[in-house]
């Protein structure tokens, strides 16, 4: 997994790419919790994520819950087909806020 953090005004965009699996989930967790910890709205770009498993999903859930605690924004954007399949299986596609594009995500933030 690779990651890149971009700052756009008041919003942090965390671009994750590659595979978020048992090996990589701890990194994803750390990156996402650090973003949420800054108190800004966070958009997680999953367009480049070819594979995400339950441990990767767990890191998303953890960041989502941390954001709710501090009442800051947290949304997923450009979710790849593979990642969406897993979110749907976990029935989290209705729990997470999901935007089709970064632009839509920024507008809503």
């Amino acid at each position: 997994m690779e990651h890149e953090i971009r700052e756009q005004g008041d919003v942090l965009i965390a671009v994750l790419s590659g595979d978020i699996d048992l090996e990589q989930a701890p990194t994803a967790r750390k990156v996402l919790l650090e973003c949420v910890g800054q108190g800004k709205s966070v958009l997680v770009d999953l367009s480049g994520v070819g594979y995400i498993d339950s441990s990767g999903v767990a890191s998303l859930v953890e960041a989502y819950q941390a954001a709710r605690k501090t009442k800051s924004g947290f949304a997923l954007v450009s979710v790849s087909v593979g990642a969406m399949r897993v979110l749907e299986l976990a029935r989290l596609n209705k729990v997470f806020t999901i935007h089709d594009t970064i632009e839509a995500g920024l507008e809503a933030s």
Partner: protein
Amino acid sequence: MPLQNDDAEVIFELTFPACPDRLKLVRTLVLEAARMSGLCDSSSRDLVIAVDEACQNVIRHAYCGDPEGKIILEFARTADSVVLKLRDFAPLADVEKIKPRDLDDIRPGGLGTHFIFELMDEATFTPPLEGDGNLLKMVKRIG
């Protein structure tokens, strides 16, 4: 190579240590084997998810993260299905406890077994026929 049983043909058997960094290898191999066995693309990818989760659970729960643990994955094909057997050599698991969280109780974790049961046509945990450890048999029908 001996036939598995009935008319099952073994495609491969992969032995690997219980390390998280081997999961990518397993996924790559299973995807290719699924395709060559005649599973369509989306079923192949679903199979990969189930196998990944099953291996992950062996690494985390059966071996409790000990990378010395040994895992064997057998991939076989019958006329109308693929049959995967995932074997570990850890202490006997309490099969009653192997179940997902309530999906409405949103929290990190507790999804892997749900994925497995949802994605496979059959998934049964049993002690292996011989020797110690645990055996998860997973079946996915073709077409």
